[in-house]
C-alpha cells in the first residue's frame, strides 16, 4: 500500500515539473527532473534512503525556480506536494522495514496514509487560497520579514550544530 502511494507521489512530484519545463522550452531541465524521478523510483527497490532527500530538495527547488520564471504556480504547487508526500512515505517505509510481521502494519499504514492525505488536501487548499489573496506590504515590513528570516535561519543552524 505504502509502496504504491509512494510511487504515485513521486510521479505526482515529477510530472508537473516535466510538463512545465517542457512547455517552457527548457527540455534539458525536464530531462534532469525525469532522471531524478526515475532514480527516486529505483531507490524504492534498491533501498537508497538518501535519494528521497535529494529528490525532495531538487524537486522543490526546481518548482520554486519554475514559479520564479513564470510557470503555473498551481502546477508547481502540485509538484511540491507530491515531493513532500513521497519523501515522507520513503521514510515511513524505512521505519516499517524495522517492524516485524506480527505488528499491525495495516493499521499503521492506514493511519499514516489518512493523515498524509488530509495534510495534502489542506496544503494544496492553502496554496490555492494564497494564490488568490494579494496583500500589499510596505518596504519596511519586507525588510523586517527578511531580517527575521535570516536571523531565524542562523539561529536554527547554530542549534542544529549544537544538537548534531
Amino acid at each position, binding site marked *: 500500500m505504502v509502496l504504491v502511494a509512494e510511487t504515485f507521489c513521486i510521479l505526482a512530484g515529477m510530472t508537473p515539473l516535466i510538463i512545465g519545463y517542457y512547455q517552457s522550452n527548457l527540455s534539458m531541465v525536464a530531462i534532469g527532473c525525469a532522471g531524478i524521478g526515475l532514480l527516486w523510483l529505483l531507490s524504492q527497490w534498491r533501498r537508497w534512503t538518501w535519494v528521497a*532527500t535529494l529528490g*525532495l*530538495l531538487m524537486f*522543490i*527547488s526546481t*518548482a*520554486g525556480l519554475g*514559479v*520564479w520564471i513564470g510557470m503555473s*504556480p498551481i502546477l*508547481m*504547487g502540485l509538484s*511540491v*506536494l507530491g515531493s*513532500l508526500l513521497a519523501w*515522507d512515505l520513503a*521514510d*515511513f517505509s524505512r*521505519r*516499517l522495514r*524495522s*517492524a*516485524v510481521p*506480527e*505488528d*499491525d*502494519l495495516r*493499521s*499503521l499504514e492506514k*493511519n*499514516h496514509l489518512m*493523515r498524509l492525505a488530509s*495534510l*495534502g488536501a*489542506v*496544503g*494544496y487548499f*492553502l*496554496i490555492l487560497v*494564497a*494564490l488568490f489573496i*494579494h*496583500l500589499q506590504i510596505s518596504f519596511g515590513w*519586507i525588510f523586517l*520579514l*527578511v531580517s527575521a*528570516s*535570516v536571523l*531565524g*535561519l542562523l539561529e*536554527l543552524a547554530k542549534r*542544529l550544530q549544537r544538537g*548534531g
Partner: protein
Amino acid sequence: MTKRAFPLIILVYGLVLAGLVTLRGELLALALPLVVYLLTGLWKAPREIQLEIHRIVGSERAAADVPVQVKLAVRNTGPGLEEVVIEDILPGELQVREGSNRHMLSLPSGSSFSWSYSVSGRRGYYVFSAVQVQASDLFGLLPRRKRLPLGGQLFVLPSLVRMRRVAIRPRRTNVYSGTIPARLGGPGVEFFGVRSYEAGDPPAWINWNISARHPESLYSNEFEQERVADVGIVLDGRLRTNLLGEAHSLFEYSVQAAASLADTFLAQGNRVGLLLYGRYLHWTFPGYGKIQRERILQTLARAEPGESQVFSDLAHIPKQLFPAHSQIVLVSSLGLGDYETLLQLRARAYQVMVVSPDPVRFELGFLSKRPEAALAGRILRMERSMALQKLKHAGVQVLDWDVAIPFDQVGPGMLGRPPAWFRAIGR
C-alpha cells in the same frame, strides 16, 4: 527537530526568503505545505513517555540452545503515542528463536499491549537490563527515546552428562555414609577383614572356616565402610591451555566435564567445591546436595577463560582450600609446566584425578593435513603421553580425553571404576 527536519526547514526558509526578496507571493505559497507539515509534526510530537512495562522471563535457568519464553506487558499511563517502537534489549549473545523482541505500534492513552518471544543462547549468564522505547509523531520528525530499566536474568547452564558413579578413593573421608570406600571396617559391601565375634554381629557375618580352625572363639567378617568425601574440582580456565590455533577453544569441553563430574559427585553424596582457575580465582565453597549443584552450575555458566600473570601456571593453586588428604579433580588440557604441580599435589597426599581434554588431537583436527603438521603432532602426542604416564606412575588417575568423542561415551566407562593398578596398590 531532528536531522530529518533539516532539509524541510532549509526549503521553507529558502522559499520564504526567495519570495520576500523577489516580491513573488507564489513562492511563499509554495512554502505553505511544508510549514503545515512541520507544524503538524510539532503539534503531534510526543511530550513524554509514560509506560509501565513488566517482563516475565519464563525460567531463570535453562540448558544451552533451549528456548526460554519472555513475556512483556506494556501499559501506556501517559499521553497517547502515535508511533512507538518498543524493544527489549537482549543481553550478550542471546538470540531470538521465536517471535520478536521489538514491536512497532500505536499506543493510545490508557491502552495496553503484551507479547511474548523466546530466546536461546550458549552457556552463559545473561542479564536483561532495560527496554528501549522510541516514540515519535506520525511523520517521524520529533522522535523521543527513553530507556526504561527493567531487570531480569537468565542462566544458560552447561550441558552435563549423567554418570552413575565416578570411582575415587581419597585417603580421608567424612563421617556420613556414602559410596566411597573409607578404609575402615564396619557395615558395607566389600570384604575388608576378619575380627573376633562381637555380641550383636549377624550370624551371616560369622566366618565359619576360621572359627572352625580356632574352636576357642568365633570370628566375624568385616566389611569396608563406605562414606562420603571432600572433592575439590579445579577447572583450568587459562587461555594458554584452552585457546588453540585460530580461536578454537577447549574450554567448553572442560566446563562440560567439570559440570558432569560435580553433578555425579554431589549425587553420590559427597561434599564438592569448585575452583575456577584462570584470570582470577573463583572459589565455590564446598557443600552438599542440590543447592550446591545449582551454585556450581551457576558458577560454570558464568565461567570465562582468561589470562593472568599470577596464575599463568598451576603452581599457584591455593592448596589450603582443599582439606588434607582429600580428592582433587583437575579438569585441564595441561601445559608443559603443569605436570610438576600435580606431582607435588600427589606428594602432599592428595588423591588426584585429571580429566584432560587432548589439545594435540583437537588442534590437529583443524590443521591442514601436511606432513609437517602430522610429524609435529606425533612429537607432541609422544611428549604428552610420556608426561601422562609419569603422572599415572605417581598414582594420579588420568583420563586422556579425545574431545571428538563425547564425554558421555568416555566418562562413564573410564571413570566409573578405578583402574587395575589403583585397585592393586589400594592407595
